[in-house]
């Protein structure tokens, strides 16, 4: 079993879509919301995902394909100037 912490950023047109719920049904991953802030124009969710590493990656590819931005939850960008 693996665990991954990601920050999902939703654009306005995606804010109403139940994508995290669908992730948990489409893939064998446990989704655990740890922090979130959703406004009218933007929303983000810090999510803990547990499951097999491959399955987590597949779920993240799926959510990316739906237009959600996926970033590391804690570090932000690692490449610095």
């Amino acid at each position: 079993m693996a665990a991954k912490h990601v920050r999902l950023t939703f654009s306005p047109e995606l804010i109403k879509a139940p994508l995290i719920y669908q992730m948990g049904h489409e893939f064998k991953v446990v989704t655990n919301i740890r922090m979130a802030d959703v406004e009218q124009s933007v929303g983000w969710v810090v999510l803990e995902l547990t499951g097999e590493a491959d399955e987590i990656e597949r779920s993240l590819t799926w959510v990316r394909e739906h237009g959600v931005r996926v970033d590391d939850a804690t570090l932000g960008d690692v490449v610095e100037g």
Partner: protein
Amino acid sequence: MSFDRALRCRECGREYPLNPIYSCEFCFGPLEVAYDYDGIRDAVTRETISRGPKTLWRYAEFLPCDPAYKVDIGTGYTPLIRADRLAKAVGLDTLWVKNDTVNPSWSFKDRVVSVAIARARQFGFTAMACASTGNLANSVAAHSAAAGMECFVFIPNDLEQGKVVGSAIYRPTLVMVEGSYDDVNRLCSELSAQYPWAFVNINVRPYYAEGSRTLGFEVAEQLGWRTPDHVVAPMASGSLFTKIWKGFQEFHKVGLIDEPHTRMSGAQALGCSPISTAYEARTLNFVPQKPNTIARSLAIGNPADGYYALKQMQETNGGAAMATDAEIVDGIKLLAETEGIFAETAGGVTVACLKKLVASGFIRRDEETVAFITGAGLKTLEAVVDEIEEPLRVPARTERFAEALAARQAALVGAAGGR
């Protein structure tokens, strides 16, 4: 002696022992070093600091590492220059430039890396690592070389030659990563979990980030133990911007200066402006961006300290601005032509944003302002190489020189008349 006490979560306040960790196990919030300020207050005075070395180690009591492990290549205590000509050009009465281009690897990154490498040695690490588009890589490679440590530097494979050479000369293991900027980010996050190295802005990030506070300490000391009315500083991750303010606050906390009332304003490039864009939208929630700017040292699309930078603007009645690539180049040229300081693109961003903030009235003419110039221009020559005036080309004969000079002066008069 160091007065670091614990690591504390910036979100929930939970404390952890001083280990190479960077995020809270409970809420994933970032960890920050907590200090024994009473101890610092008892240990330092203006006089003890003034007698210290002319480097950032004059503030050793404030740094989260044992100075016995320091790798001192002369970082810090850089000039604070009264910039009257630039002040006049942008419309201010009093402007200072904090010139951090003169650090050993020619950027402020030497401050953060000085602290990171000292703490890494104290932890017992024997290898340093980082992912960078230039300045950080140069500094980590230089400090590792001076310490005789192994060094692994990860860079995107499309970097300019100057930046590649600027790291390679110190002979680290230089890794050019194939793929996009996001791929490099992902790879290095994963590698940091697998290799027993001190990744400066990952597992020793809480310590590394503290080095930037020395910019705040120095400005306060150099102004005669006081803080300015306004600060304009560049923002990439937002860490530097928040740590300058933290430095001011800490000097007050230990009784070295009066309470700071500085307004803190940040500068970003339009092509990578998640923080400034959120400021304009009056929200603390930034939207990550894909960077597309010549200011690559500020090209952090998902800034770790973006939220805290925005909060700080709110708390200090500061603001933010953003500059186009053309404005960045103009900013570099303006700083060079008025103050004789050749800055890299991040400096152009700071000057361009300073100009905008003054022009809009956000910074009042009578506010004493400090602009932070964080890296040297020789690192980003390609940004300005096509923008400089053509030299006069003459045979080695006096009359031909006189003709060429007269022609150039006539052209300049014509250009001025045509405006």
